[in-house]
């Protein structure tokens, strides 16, 4: 198992763990921080903290929720420390202007609206819907990650979905 090998000091195994969970950790951190650079810094902090804490990891339990709890805490800590900065709501390429196909422009606008709608949610609610609908964690796992009762997670996901769906009523799935 990768976590056991990483715990034994195998740096290759640690690299494989990072590669496996990097995108997920960066998305979750970005859900908290909004700014992609801050999110990457928080995700890196989380991986390094996880490496130090691997001794505490119970190999009988799934690794993802354990790691995501560290990621969520690292992102929340960084958000508390930093000066409040507004997140970029649109892709750099879209802001940069220039000719773009209509479909790409529409997609960029929709993604910007989604990020804005997500940013309007309370942090716990935002994390709950991201972990449930985007990352596919079960309510019980999210309850463990966020340290809240399972019923509260269900309620947070429900309210988050209602908010996002209201603002994105014209969302169309892109290929």
């Amino acid at each position: 198992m990768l976590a056991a090998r990483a715990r034994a000091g195998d740096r290759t195994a640690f690299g494989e763990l990072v590669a496996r969970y990097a995108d997920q950790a960066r998305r979750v951190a970005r859900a908290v921080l909004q700014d992609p650079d801050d999110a990457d810094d928080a995700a890196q902090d989380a991986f390094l903290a996880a490496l130090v804490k691997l001794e505490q990891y119970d190999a009988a339990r799934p690794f993802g929720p354990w790691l995501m709890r560290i990621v969520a805490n690292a992102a929340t800590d960084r958000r508390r420390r930093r000066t409040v900065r507004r997140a970029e709501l649109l892709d750099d390429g879209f802001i940069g202007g220039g000719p773009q196909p209509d479909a790409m422009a529409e997609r960029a606008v929709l993604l910007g609206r989604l990020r804005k709608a997500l940013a309007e949610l309370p942090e716990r609610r935002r994390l709950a819907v991201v972990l449930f609908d985007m990352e596919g964690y079960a309510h019980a796992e999210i309850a463990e990650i966020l340290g809240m009762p399972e019923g509260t997670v269900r309620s947070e996901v429900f309210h988050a979905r209602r908010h996002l769906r209201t603002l994105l009523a014209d969302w169309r799935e892109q290929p």
Partner: protein
Amino acid sequence: MSDPSTPFDSRPDPVLGAALRAALAPRNSAAFVGRVVAAADRPAAPLDVLAGWSRLGIAAAVLAALFAGVAVGRDAASADSATSSPDAAAIIAGTEAPDAITLLASFPDR
């Protein structure tokens, strides 16, 4: 968008999930992985080492303070017992120099 859910809905919404994934998609995964692995291989900075010791240091300081408090408390108790006998009280209350025999008798037996 999928149909509205209830709090009892235990199925992820694939459309909303795909939209969120697109909105929060990170860039250049390989570079990020390389950066984290390199950071893990980097030796800890002196300040990091000190930070690692800080908890131990605080715990040691708390223990030392507790022991010091206990030691001071014992000394104070000994001083109290030294002045608790009637002879000692008379010496302290008196205005003249104490008689040597009375003074020696006021010391507690050890």
